[in-house]
C-alpha cells in the first residue's frame, strides 16, 4: 500500500511539473524577452502582462499541485526514492513536452543532455 502511494505521488509530481514547466515556458514566450521589455515598459507593466497570461496562471496551478504532492510524497514515502525519481523523470518528460508542444529543436545534443542530467540527478538527489 505504501509503495502504491509513493509511486502514485511520484507520477503525479512528475506529470504536474512537466505540465507546469511547459505552460510557464509558453506563457513567457508570449510575454516576450523580459530584459528587453524592462527598458521599454518597466517592471510593473511586465508583472501585469505576466499575471494576465492564462497559460501562466494554469502553469502556477500545475506547479502548486506538483509542490504539494511532493510534500505529501516526502512525508509518506522513502525520501531517497521519491525526490530523485520525480526530478529525474521530469527532465525526460520535459524534453518530450518541449519538442511536441513548444516546438523546440530538441536535437541529439539536447537528448543526450536530458539523459545525462536525468541520470546524474537520480544519483545525486537521494
Amino acid at each position, binding site marked *: 500500500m505504501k509503495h502504491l502511494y509513493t509511486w502514485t505521488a511520484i507520477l503525479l509530481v512528475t506529470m504536474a511539473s512537466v505540465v507546469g*514547466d*511547459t505552460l*510557464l*515556458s509558453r506563457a*513567457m*514566450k508570449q*510575454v*516576450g*524577452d*523580459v*530584459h*528587453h*521589455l524592462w527598458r*521599454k515598459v518597466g517592471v510593473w507593466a511586465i508583472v501585469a502582462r*505576466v499575471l494576465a497570461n492564462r497559460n501562466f496562471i494554469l502553469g502556477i496551478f500545475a506547479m502548486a499541485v506538483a509542490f*504539494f504532492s511532493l*510534500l*505529501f510524497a*516526502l*512525508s*509518506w514515502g522513502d525520501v531517497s526514492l521519491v525526490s530523485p525519481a520525480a*526530478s529525474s523523470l521530469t*527532465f525526460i518528460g*520535459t*524534453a518530450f*513536452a*518541449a519538442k511536441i508542444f*513548444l*516546438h*523546440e*529543436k*530538441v*536535437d541529439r*545534443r*539536447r537528448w*543526450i*543532455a*536530458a*539523459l*545525462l*542530467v536525468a*541520470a*546524474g*540527478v*537520480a*544519483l*545525486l*538527489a537521494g
Partner: protein
Amino acid sequence: MTFRKYLVLAGVTVFSAAGDSMLSYGMKQTGNISLHHLGSVIVAVFNPWIAVGIVLLLAFFASYVNALSWADLTYVLPATSLGYVLLALIARFALHEHVSLLRWLGIVLISGGVSFVAGGPALTSHKHQEKSYTPESEATRVTGIAGSGDSYQGMPSGVPYPIAESAPLGADSSTDE
C-alpha cells in the same frame, strides 16, 4: 547571451539549491504531513526554515520565469540541476562531509549534460526566433554608440536642443510584438 543573462541562470541554480535544502531541513523538524491532519501544513509554513525556503524558492521562480522569457525550456531546465551539484560540492568542501563515488559520478553526469546544452543556442523555437535577435541588434547598437565616445546616458532637464541622435534606440519598438 549577455552578462546579465548568465547572472539570471546563476540565480536559477543558487536559489533552487538553497531553497530546496532549507525546505527539506525544515520538513525534517516538522515531521509527517498526512491527509487526515491538513492543519499540519499550516504549522509547517510557520517553521522559520520552511518560511525562508519558500522565500528563496520565490526568488528561484522569478529568475526561472525571467530565463524562460528568452531561452528554451530544455536550455533553462538543466541549469536547475546544477543546484544538486552545488549542494554536493558545499557538502564536500564547506561541511567536509563524505561524498560517495556514486555522487561524484552524478556530478560528472550533470556537468556533462549542462555543458552539452550550454554549447548550443539558447532559443530554437521557430515562432519566436526574431525576438531573440531584437535585443542583440539593440545591444550592438548601444555598444556602437558607447564605442564612439558618446557615453551620454540620460536627458537632464533644461537641455536646450532636442536630442535627435537617441531616436534610433527606441525605433525598434515595432519589432517586438
